[in-house]
């Protein structure tokens, strides 16, 4: 069956795509690569530095701390948003006007711009006029996001959960709606428990949308900038300074083009690597395992 005719003219068909990708991604990226290996002192004074910037970035204590904070943040919000999103999708009404009403209500946070989300929560948590800040204080809780790192973290996580869980819920909801009724009927006849139905029907059918949800939420949260910047400004101290804020300070604030270029590339590669590893692992899990032992 395998008698294909080798035909290299097919490469011509790839060419337009290649040109497009070159302009949209490769060329802009190469300018960053260009900066990352040079020390630019002025328009006519630049020196080749090799991997020096990369080394110093990787060994920078402040950046390492920001990186750890970033990873923790992404893991925490994933651990909350994915199960919560699935749970919301499971209890959402399936048809009728209630379904539309709930969908609209749930989607609202997704429509609010990042900066506005930050501002809303900034006001919301103020001790004097914010409902949450004032309320907690009235309850006798010493809540202050500008002073307590714990409060700042909890608030940022709460804000992100509020802003982005709807995305996970909506993806899961669409996944659940695509399960044919016969599956539930067969499960009833097979006497499956509620848990078994979730574990063996709903969750497997949600795998694909969950992969998308996890990837989107990971990438998004790993690049988070505007919301914590507006809410806490990275403080108290540097307790909520995440990677993109460090990068902005370096590139825009201090005009350190070389180090920030190196940093950007590392940042980009980390996201790429994590996403790739995650995706490949999940896809491999769905394949048949090589036969070994009994069932």
């Amino acid at each position, binding site marked *: 069956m395998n008698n294909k005719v080798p035909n290299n003219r097919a490469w011509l068909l790839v060419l337009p795509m290649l040109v497009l990708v070159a302009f949209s991604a490769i060329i802009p990226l190469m300018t960053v690569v260009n900066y990352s290996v040079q020390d630019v002192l002025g328009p006519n004074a630049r020196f080749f530095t090799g991997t020096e910037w990369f080394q110093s970035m990787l060994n920078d204590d402040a950046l390492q701390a920001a990186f750890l904070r970033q990873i923790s943040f992404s893991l925490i919000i994933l651990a909350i948003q994915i199960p919560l999103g699935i749970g919301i999708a499971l209890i959402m009404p399936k048809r009728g006007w209630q379904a539309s009403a709930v969908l609209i209500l749930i989607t609202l946070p997704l429509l609010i711009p990042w900066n506005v989300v930050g501002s809303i929560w900034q006001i919301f948590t103020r001790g004097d006029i914010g409902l949450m800040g004032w309320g907690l204080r009235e309850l006798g809780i010493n809540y202050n996001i500008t002073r307590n790192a714990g409060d700042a973290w909890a608030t940022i996580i709460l804000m992100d959960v509020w802003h982005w869980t709807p995305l996970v819920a909506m993806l899961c909801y669409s996944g659940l709606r695509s399960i*044919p009724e*016969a*599956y539930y*009927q*067969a499960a*009833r*006849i*097979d*006497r*499956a*428990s509620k848990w*078994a139905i979730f574990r*063996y*029907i709903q969750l*497997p*059918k949600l795998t694909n949308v969950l992969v998308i949800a996890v990837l989107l939420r990971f990438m998004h949260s790993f690049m988070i900038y505007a919301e914590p910047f507006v809410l806490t400004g990275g403080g108290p101290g540097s307790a909520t300074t995440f990677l993109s804020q460090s990068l902005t300070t370096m590139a825009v604030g201090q005009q350190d083009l070389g180090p920030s270029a190196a940093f950007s590339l590392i940042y980009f590669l980390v996201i790429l690597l994590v996403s790739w590893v995650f995706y490949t692992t999940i896809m491999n899990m*769905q394949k*048949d395992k090589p*036969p070994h032992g*009994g*069932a």
Partner: protein
Amino acid sequence: MAEITLKGLAHSYEKKPTGAADYAIRQMDHVWHQGGAYALLGPSGCGKSTLLNIISGLLEPSEGDVLFDGQRVNELPPEERNIAQVFQFPVIYDTMTVFDNLAFPLRNMNTPEYRVKPKVLEVADILELTPLLDRKAKNLTADEKQKVSMGRGLVRDDVTAILFDEPLTVIDPQLKWKLRRKLKEIHERFNITMIYVTHDQLEASTFADKIAVMYEGQVVQFGTPRELFERPAHTFVGYFIGSPGMNFMAVNHRDGQVMFGSQPLPVSDQMKHAVANASSTNASSNNIKLGIRPEFIAIASSEMADSVPILVTSVQDLGTYSLLTFKLNEQTFKARLPEGHPPVGETAFAHFDAAHVALYIDEYLVEAGHE
């Protein structure tokens, strides 16, 4: 063991049904005996699947009762009814292996593992799934998946009836035949009542001992494939069973003759009598039809005894027989000619075999008293 009785059963998907048209199932009584192989045959949308879902408990009937061995089970959910159901599209648990799929109903009943394994192996053997037991169910072909769905019904010892809802729709034609044989084999081996929903008369007659033909939410005839063919109890059965279906003529009685429009029909004296009777008693409805199967119409170029002149429109050669289409009194008829029948011209004569002319009043068969 279960004898399934439907008593005064009716179902409507509307909350407040206003007329007959709102009912998916119209008032019916029916008994499925223990251990029988039955088919539920009918066109799409006639209520077959609704009826099946009521028997399995996925739907609660709006009127009437479902009895299992005389016990009313209307409110019992499917999980408490000792039935299994196989759906049109194979339902398998994607992430599990074939073994785990088959073991699933047993494990849900907390069956100890040492009893699960032999049972699963036995069922896998019957369905020829043994080499696939370690495979993930997700990667199977459609017919293998459908066998797994059937297997889940067979592993349970408490299953007394298996309901099939057009289970071979997604299966390739060659495999259909094999799976049907398998089903028959399983039926003979286990003493299980099987009800098989289909819209394919061939599938129904090869699988079932008795077929219930459904039309507009009612079982219009329940009988062996032979009975359905020879004595259709309803004009719909005549039209639906057989290929092509029965020919029908709306007739009336005039001047001592059975008239099909302006054409007097040569029928037996009993039939003349019956039509005459029907015309006088049913004067208001006046829905009297004679039916004859294409197999029982003889065609010749020259006039025969008791024949009527016809206009031949086409002859199709279908290999083992020819299908002749003709017009009589502006209505199209089909006749089946045996192989090697002498060719006929545009005008010919048709003879209706008197023993096989059936009388229908208001669409239902009336015995005319001949034979």
